[in-house]
């Protein structure tokens, strides 16, 4: 008996190879579409804004006179904003994910909560702005402060981190979990020493995506009434602030041509901050990651 029918194989081999190559080409094309757009965008922005990236630009406050305009206040403001948003959102959402995956009883209510967290990820950011305006700015009387805006953005990105953290925690093999319990570890010891470190790479991927969205967000800040012209930087989380994306958005709308180049320069700065922020996250991920 012949295990492999050589005639049959050689007959269909050509077609299979072609099909394989076609699919490979299609997938490559998919990757390239995104990549080409991204590269065009970055090159175009850098070419427009490069000459305007001066020391003065980095150290001056915003201005309606293009020759004086800078991003100092906006950079400091955006950093402050992230300093509030990052810890609040990370702790709340990793905690939520941990509860839902490890502690919550498996019943309808838990399922309902899980589904709604995913739905929350699709709510437009303006809606979160309105929520923040009602609760943080007015009811808790925080005003248009760093804290109010940071909490609003935290709520906005919460679902993204929760969902990705859940996914990461779920992907920790149950054998590891059982081994830990089998060794006499308590639930808390298992969660804190085994599951969390194993889930960190996935969690941080979620955090990167979420914080990248938060730092570029304009709409909720406009709703909260965050100022565009402000010639001081915040001294505490209760002071008001400027934000880089709002500064950029304001410049796009100005009639003077120079502002179009300043906009590009502002975008470069925003990208650099984003890049630095994500580098730190990736560093942490590589340092703590423990794969099973």
């Amino acid at each position, binding site marked *: 008996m012949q295990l492999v029918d050589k005639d049959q194989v050689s007959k269909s081999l050509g077609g299979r190879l072609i099909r394989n190559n076609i699919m490979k080409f299609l997938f490559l094309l998919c990757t390239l579409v995104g990549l080409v757009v991204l590269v065009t965008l970055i090159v175009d922005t850098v070419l427009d804004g490069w000459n305007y990236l001066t020391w003065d630009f980095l150290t001056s406050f915003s201005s309606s006179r293009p020759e004086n305009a800078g991003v100092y206040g906006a950079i400091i403001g955006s950093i402050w904003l992230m300093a509030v948003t990052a810890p609040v959102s990370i702790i709340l959402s990793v905690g939520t994910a941990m509860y839902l995956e490890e502690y919550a009883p498996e019943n309808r209510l838990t399922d309902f909560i899980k589904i709604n967290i995913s739905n929350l990820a699709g709510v437009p950011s303006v809606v979160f702005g309105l929520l923040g305006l009602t609760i943080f700015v*007015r009811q*808790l009387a925080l005003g248009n402060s760093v*804290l109010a805006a940071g909490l609003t953005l935290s709520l906005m990105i919460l679902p993204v981190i929760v969902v990705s953290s859940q996914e990461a925690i779920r992907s920790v093999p149950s054998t590891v979990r059982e081994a830990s319990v089998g060794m006499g570890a308590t639930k808390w010891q298992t969660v804190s020493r085994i599951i969390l470190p194993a889930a960190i790479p996935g969690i941080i991927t979620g955090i990167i995506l979420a914080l990248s969205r938060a730092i570029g967000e304009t709409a909720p800040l*406009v709703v909260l009434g965050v100022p565009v012209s402000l010639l*001081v930087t915040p001294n505490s989380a209760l002071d008001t602030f400027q934000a880089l994306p709002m500064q950029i958005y304001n410049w796009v709308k100005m009639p003077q041509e120079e502002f179009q180049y300043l906009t590009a320069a502002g975008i470069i700065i925003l990208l650099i901050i984003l890049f630095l922020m994500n580098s730190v996250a990736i560093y942490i991920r590589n340092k703590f990651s423990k794969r099973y």
Partner: protein
Amino acid sequence: MKKSTFLAALLMSLMFILAACSGSGGSAEEDSASGSSDESADAGSEGESSEGSGDLSGEIVGDGSSTVFPIMEIINEEFNAEHSMAAEIGVSGTGGGFERFTEGETHFNNASREISEEEVSLLEENGIDYTEFLVGTDGLTVAVSQDNDFVDSLTFDELYTIYSGEADSWSDVREDFPDEPITAYGPDQSHGTHDFFVETVMNDEDIDAQLIQDTNQVVSSVTQDTSSIGFFGYSFYLENQDSLKAVPVQGPDNEEAIEPTDETVQDYSYPLSRPLFVYANNESLNNNEAFRTFMEFTLENAAAATEESGYVALPEEDYQEQIDQLP
């Protein structure tokens, strides 16, 4: 430092959860009550504490129109240079700004239109007195490409024909125009400029044209297409005079078509001139030293700032008159 900020943040988020749990019952009443007490608390505490750098006591908060914003930002810079303190000015748009102004959250509101009756009644409800100041004039400019050689003037009726979508080609607008397809552009509903055009030219009917969010895109669309037409603020025309041709406009009260120039906009003979306002909270004018100084400073410097931003200043004496009328 960072740790305490973070702890505070954590605390606030806990408070939020508590508030969310307990709040669902009698919310509306609580809302307005806490709202008004916040303001008084704000005005009191921040006046004394935070703004220690300047030579004046009090803080200055404004919001409103993005059209008026460049004027106020220039004034704010000058004010900062002189008094080493500055206002915080947002750009929520005229309507968005009035929402905060009527709640007493801001001291002044920039507006590219007059305050509406609804907003006035809200202010009355909340017991807020206000004063209306004029800082400058904008001339909404209707423009075609520099290469367009046949459009020499348009009446309000002709503009209506174009922007209501009735005209497919220029010959539909006026018989001696060539039979070329017409494309009309304008800023979208988020702009006061759009609302002003709808009110004055369209008799409050919707515009049927290409509406674009970014006014700079309106300008470049008109520049690139010789058979197109667009409208935008005067400053956008001034910045692009090389490539644009402003169309003289004849309103219902005009005997002939009038070109937008500094003079015709200033004396309102140009039918699409519109005033730029700043609304101020009277109580703050009287009790907040910094804000009063700021408003005086604004009126003193508005002429130069208005022109620098590409708008038209009022006649000099009008500013002085408004300073004298400060409540």
